[in-house]
């Protein structure tokens, strides 16, 4: 149902994942995940090693944060993130590259896992694993299935339906076995019989590689899917694989599903089998007009500016926008000095010619937004409601079902900023509901 088919532009699929050089300094934000910020446990002047715990999850919805580099804590202060929001952060000056002794840095693949499900979940928490598909949901909460609910399906999201992005593609090509081990570990943690890896048909190479590898494992099934944005959205993927639908306002576990991004399963493997906390991302540097395309394994906390400087030098003169994430759901970067965080998947450079929106004109009531909406909503109607501040009606018409995939604005021939208006409407509705609760 619904959806669109934007130009794929997967131009960096052949760029092998390179280790990104260790920078001179990093800034580690304390909000790298969904939920409350982590609490720093180091002080100014402390020496830290790569992989050392530097901030602890004190709240329920929170995740541990480890140092991505070795060196000295220079200050604990606030830092403007790439999108202009000030957040608490730990600044570290890099000295050498000294890792924690517990981390297994050998290239050997470790296949056996003897941990119990509880131990696996506890270790995911220790290692600060969060979902790398975009929402950065803390993994230990996701894999700790609440009482009274039962996981029946483990779904691995390798859809990568966003145009341009290729980090999942490359991880599958280069780390298929580690991914399958990671999937087996998660399968064990949940106690489900089968795990399904959903990959869109426009990625024949990863499908072949993953199918060959999955056949050596028990209970891992690769599901090729028809290409359709936003199939990588959690609710849409669950529907594509199981035929089930997550009800409004509910979580995947309410229909017996747990969804994990394929990049996360690789991080799970490294955390459980190699004792490596989540300190690195696989990140794509791409764009139509930049001189070279890259996929990097990059330490968290490096600024976007440093990544651009090392990979392509200067931004092209005609650069219009730099986006963290894909062009459909990614965020436009406001501050290139801002650091990367867990789950940062790309640096996407968009040319001026594509970065400026065309002029808005009257809605011609074509209904393209209605047909495109994967949630079966009426974006054009929200536009009118929000402009007239009729938020109660917007709530009744299920504005909160919106997953912000952008299909409505993408397909609007009148260039109405539909998603901007819906986002504002959602915020107002949430505020309204919070006020009513009080």
């Amino acid at each position: 149902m619904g959806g669109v088919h934007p130009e794929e532009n997967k131009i960096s699929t052949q760029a092998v994942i390179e280790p990104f050089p260790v920078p001179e300094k990093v800034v580690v934000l304390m909000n790298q995940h969904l939920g409350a910020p982590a609490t720093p446990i180091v002080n100014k002047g402390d020496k830290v090693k790569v992989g050392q715990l530097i901030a602890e999850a004190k709240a329920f919805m929170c995740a541990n944060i480890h140092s991505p580099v070795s060196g000295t804590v220079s200050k604990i202060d606030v830092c403007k993130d790439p999108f202009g929001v000030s957040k608490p952060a730990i600044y570290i000056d890099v000295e050498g590259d000294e890792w924690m002794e517990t981390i297994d840095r050998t290239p050997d693949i470790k296949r056996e896992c003897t941990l119990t499900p509880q131990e696996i979940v506890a270790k995911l928490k220790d290692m600060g694993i969060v979902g790398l598909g975009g929402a950065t949901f803390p993994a230990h909460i996701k894999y700790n299935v609440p009482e009274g609910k039962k996981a029946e399906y483990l779904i691995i999201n390798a859809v990568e339906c966003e145009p341009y992005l290729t980090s999942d593609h490359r991880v599958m090509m280069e780390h298929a076995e580690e991914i399958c081990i990671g999937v087996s570990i998660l399968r064990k943690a949940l106690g489900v019989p089968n795990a399904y890896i959903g990959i869109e048909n426009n990625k024949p190479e990863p499908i072949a590689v993953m199918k060959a590898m999955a056949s050596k494992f028990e209970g891992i099934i690769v599901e090729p899917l028809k290409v359709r944005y936003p199939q990588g959205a959690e609710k849409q993927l669950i529907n594509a694989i199981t035929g089930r639908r997550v009800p409004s306002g509910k979580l995947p576990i309410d229909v017996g599903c747990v969804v994990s991004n394929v990049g996360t399963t690789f991080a799970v493997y490294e955390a459980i089998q190699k004792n490596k906390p989540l300190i690195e991302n696989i990140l794509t540097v791409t764009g139509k007009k930049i001189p070279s395309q890259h996929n990097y394994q990059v330490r968290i906390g490096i600024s976007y500016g440093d990544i651009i400087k090392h990979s392509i030098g200067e931004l092209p003169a005609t650069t219009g926008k730099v986006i963290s994430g894909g062009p459909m759901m990614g965020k436009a970067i406001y501050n290139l000095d801002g650091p990367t965080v867990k789950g940062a998947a790309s640096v996407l450079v968009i040319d001026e010619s594509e970065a400026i929106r065309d002029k808005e004109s009257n809605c011609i009531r074509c209904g393209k937004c209605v047909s495109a909406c994967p949630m079966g909503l009426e974006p054009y109607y929200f536009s009118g409601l929000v402009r007239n501040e009729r938020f109660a009606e917007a709530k009744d018409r299920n504005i909160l079902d919106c997953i912000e995939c952008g299909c409505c604005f993408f397909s609007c021939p009148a260039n109405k900023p539909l998603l901007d208006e819906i986002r504002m409407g959602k915020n107002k509705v949430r505020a309204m509901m919070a006020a009513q609760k009080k």
Partner: protein
Amino acid sequence: MKLLNVSGSPHVHSDESTKKIMWRVNIALIPMLLVAIAFFGLNALLVSLVSVACCVLFQWLIEKFILKVPSTICDGSAVVTGLLLAFNVPATREMFWIVAIGALVAIGIGKMSFGGLGKNPFNPALVGRVFLLISFPVQMTTWPKPGENLFSMVSVPTTDATTGATPLGILKENGTDALPQVWDMLLGHIGGSLGEVSAIAILIGAIYLLCKKVISWHIPVAFIGTAFVFSGILWLIDPTAYMNPVYSILSGGLMLGACFMATDMVTSPMAKSGQLLFGFGCGLLTIIIRTWGAYPEGVSFAILLMNAVTPLINRWCKPARFAK
């Protein structure tokens, strides 16, 4: 340092635009124009030109001097209205000035008075057409006989061609015996308004629009299907009094209305279920008006009536929610 753009997602856009959609509709109308010129001669071309020119001019004048807003004539929607209006009048010389009045009503009252493209509740071309039908009943139903001035492109006749009746007119006056051949109705070799005579030309345009995803199949299929079934039932009851359903759907403005007027996105429902209901209503009303109404033709009235209930249909027929 050069500043970066910042905006909410999505950061890419499909290459759809209102302008593209409207010009595609204009392209789809070309086969009908060619058939009209072939059967009705230079008059057809001149009526179309006058109609289009007046629609564009009136929109430009209203936007510049009355509304004082930037001109939107380049989006092609005034050309669509002009062509559709011309396609709904007979190709006679009197129409040269009558259609200009129709253009003023279509653009001025039908469209700009509501705020321009997208805001009009009724199909502007039909507003113009119905105004003309009521104001100039004789001229609007004096049909040139097709083919008789087939060569008028080379020798412009000094008088109008001999007038002939439309199949629906024949039916109202003479019963079912005197109807033309189905083949002639497919090709367009019958009496009628400029653009409505050839079912084949209309279908070529409609298929183009379907392929370009400007229209969807829901409204035309529901409209034509309902008309076919309903008139078929009547025909089965009494074949001497009622028209064969094949004639029903090929005659008058039904094909043109179903494919180009009812599918006007501005005035038809948004959800697919609503579009089916809309098409059903159009088909039903058309046959009711044709059978029991005072006018031989009911397509324009049927579509305008359904335009009026479109906001209600939008209320009832919502898309199926993904997450209940």
